[in-house]
């Protein structure tokens, strides 16, 4: 492990200045559950580590039914699933935060960090995509916004430019008659990385019989978590039944272009994409009614 400097700025401006000065040689520390391991194993290098947990905007969790959720980028997972109102409003997010690592990890790791780490298998990313979350980014040139579906660029790479910092994630207010779910497949029952993951969000008609809108996103089946557009669009206007879910699963797996590795074969992951899509749609519909 190479020695590095440490700074804990108290404002976004200070943090951005530090990051800009190092021009890519600074790394951001929130929960540290990824970056510390990566630094120790030599997978990433840093001259400076910038701890962002002293910046109020990054540790705020602000929810109201009218305006939705603004989630500071460094808020640890447990604060999401332990907040009954937030967990009820965004159940796919609660599902995902409950299964990232174990309790120790969940008390440190943040959703913002999970997104910035840009793992293809990041559990909290598909929920962000199906909620159509807006990522608020500060940088030397000011603020900008990027949709969650566009935030990851490649395995381990995101769209942040040198000097930029993810501030918060803005979730829209909960639509009426909507529900969502996230599931992943792992061979064990904990302490594992998703072989495949799927999040589904649906909005039903008032009678609860027909899907009006749907969004599906997949993890661990492509270089970055991916929005399954064709399946999502197809579901609009379809009856909320097993047949629709199964067909959506078949459509969703078209966006799956996974690799063969120690966590699963390509063929198996494509298959899981359809199974998990179907299962999360069924859950999401149940939660919507």
């Amino acid at each position, binding site marked *: *492990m190479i020695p590095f400097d440490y700074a804990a700025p108290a404002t976004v401006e200070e943090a951005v200045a530090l990051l800009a000065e190092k021009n890519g040689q600074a790394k951001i520390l929130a929960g540290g559950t990824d970056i510390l391991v990566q630094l120790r194993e030599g997978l990433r290098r840093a001259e400076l580590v910038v701890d962002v947990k002293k910046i109020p905007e990054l540790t705020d969790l602000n929810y109201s039914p009218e305006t939705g959720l603004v989630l500071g980028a460094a808020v640890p997972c447990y604060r999401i699933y332990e907040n009954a109102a937030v967990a009820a409003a965004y159940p796919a997010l609660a599902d995902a935060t409950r299964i990232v690592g174990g309790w120790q990890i969940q008390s440190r790791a943040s959703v913002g960090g999970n997104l910035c780490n840009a793992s293809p298998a990041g559990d909290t990313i598909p929920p962000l995509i199906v909620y159509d979350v807006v990522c608020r980014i500060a940088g030397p040139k000011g603020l900008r916004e990027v949709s969650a579906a566009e935030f990851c660029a490649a395995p381990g790479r995101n769209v942040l430019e040198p000097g930029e910092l993810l501030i918060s994630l803005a979730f829209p207010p909960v639509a009426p008659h909507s529900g969502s779910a996230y599931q992943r*497949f792992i*061979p*064990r*029952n904990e302490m594992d990385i998703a072989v495949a993951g799927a999040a589904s969000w649906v909005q039903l008609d008032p009678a609860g019989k027909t899907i009006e809108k749907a969004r599906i996103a997949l993890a661990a089946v492509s270089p970055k978590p991916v929005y399954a557009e064709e399946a999502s669009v197809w579901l609009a206007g379809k009856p909320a039944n097993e047949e629709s879910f199964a067909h959506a699963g078949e459509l969703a797996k078209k966006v799956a272009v996974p690799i063969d590795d*120690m*966590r*699963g*074969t390509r063929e*198996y992951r494509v298959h899981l994409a359809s199974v998990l899509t179907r299962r999360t749609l069924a859950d999401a519909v149940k939660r919507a009614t």
Partner: protein
Amino acid sequence: MDKRAEATDTPEYKVIGTRPVRHDGADKVTGRAIYGADVHLTGMAHSRILRSPHPHARIKSIDTSEAEKIPGVLAVLTAADFPELEDKIAHLGEGSVNLAFLAANCVAKDKALYRGHAVAAVAAVSPHAADEAVKRIKVEYEPLPATTWVLDAMKDDAPLLHENLRTDEMGEKGDKPSNVASHLHFETGDVEKGFAEADVVIEREFRTASVHQGYIEPHVATALWNEDGRLKIWTSTQGSFTCRQQTAELLQMPISHVTVVPCEIGGGFGGKIAVYLEPVAALLSRKCGRPVKIIMQRNEVFEGTGPTPGSFVRVKLGAKKDGRLTAGQAWLAYDAGAYPGGMIGPGCMCVFSCYELPHALVDGYDVCLNKPKTQAYRAPGATQAAFACESVVDELADALGIDPFDFRLKNAAKEGTRRVDGPIYPRIGLIETLEAARNSEHWKSPLEGENRGRGMAAGFWFNVGLKSSVSAHVNPDGTVKLLEGSTDIGGTRASVAMQLAETLGIAAEDVHPIVADTDSVGYTDVTGGSRVTFATGMAAYEAGLDIRRQMAERAALLWECDANDVTIEGDDYSANGNSMTFREIAANLHETGGAVVGRATVAPEGSTNGFGCHIVDVEVDPETGKVTILRYTAAQDAGKAIHPSYVEGQMQGGAVQGIGWALNEEYFFDNQGAMRNASFLDYRMPTCLDVPMIDTIIVEVPNPAHPYGVRGVGETPIVPPPAALANAIYNATGVRMRELPMSPPRLWKAMAEKAGSRE
């Protein structure tokens, strides 16, 4: 609930069979126990090891000059620092080893034979400096083709690991170099005749992946080379004396110059018998004049130590319509890893060990390939063999329409049965164990629901005797200090101390067991082979008899009578109307001649035998192939359970390791022969959420070769799980899985193929 099966005619015991708090419990639960990583000596240097990135490569040159320039570096070591060693076989108690191979496994000489093979080491003032220096060592490799699957390595055109290795076949050497180190052959009767008599013959092939012992404590050693030539080593080992012997032989020094201090051990399961770090730390210490400590990282443990063999096994069994087995044939190829001497011997001995077979033929091959040198893992070699045999037995019973218990009971080995490798069983408890399992509430209760199935399998492992020595000092307060040489992996301080307490008629808490270093206790073989409670327990019993005799003499002195007139009942000594307790006599030790020291050395001949039977209920997700274990019961003959909680713990731990082996654990190699999952994240051992409570049934058929009837219990429980699970999966899905692990992608694919062939 105490679920031990009722045994008749068992003596009344005061201590044996009770569940006292373990003697080392407080230190362990409060974090005070001293493990290898807790050793900190003044001026201690830290070492890191450079490992080969290639699975097979010639080492053309090593340049350490840049590493030596790093500030804080104290010494750099390569294979050139080891003494020249001829091919010499050293006997290590359980198993033997060629010293030249052992040395080359510690640090590669001319070739790296597996990815992770140690190539050089650095000692420095800090781990960070050592880390940095290791990166500056320049090694010029010539990569060679590699092979990691046993059948590939046996082919004529396979890359050769050792230019001089020729197949040993009944003492005869083969005529050309080969990766096949030896071919074993066992035969009884006439298999052709036996198969001709059969009404049904089934022959199947099985494959298993390499799996690691998975101990939570990585290998660690600290060595201090004194200027007068004495060497002291603190380490995590299953055998302090075998560690002493290996280190002394590799460094070509007298064993009396080496002291090994066994620290508390965080799991071994067979993987902490061979030395890796001790000679390296010792040579670095000699070079730099300081104590040197080496701790492996987890990836080094996976890539540089263990694992147990991957295997290919073909089993053929024939039976009459009434279920009587007529013949069995097995062909087993086990990988030995980089150097000869894998687990093929016990694999051959165990494959048919549960059954009476009039005609049997077993061929086994020990095969070198580009993986770490394989090591023992809990009943080494037996699990792979039982997976094959118990799967075919199940299929045969199914084909004949016979209940799997009835089939096994009809053919079960018993007293007088001759195993294919020769020995004739003394009194054993397989039939009682099968009956206890069949009579269990688990087997009798119905299993309902879709995609669910129940399976069972039997298993066998030896109890080796080997050599154990103990001494025990009586304190004036009536307690007894017990010095033993068996490192305590599975609660053996308690089980050995309890046997001494029983012999002396005192409380378990009044015996204080200590695992002593190699200077402080007589030679004791490794903790392995399910032998410690059996053999070291026997030594404790005999030391107890020695103490009783001496205590009777002290009483006789006090009462001015003949020691032969003293009668002993429990802890009560009496003669001529006088009577004193053990404690009262102890209070008079100083007045009657000083300390009483009991001692004993035992070397029980041959091997006794432990049998088990497991039952498992599973549910298979038909869409993902994931297996959920709904219920699990392990039954086993313990002979006599000294401390039932630790017997149950062994049965549960073994079952869980077997479940991991069966369902998810495997060395995953890429097409370059590199392991891709050298972490506990991706090498998927079961977590506590993956297994239910393992129910246990202790069967007690006393071992006639032990004063308290003990049979070792540590290893047998890992043997049945893969076969029991495969049989349960078949009953749930109709698919026979013949390759381990039966991981979700594999099972899903097998189910999909079966569904496809039905359509």
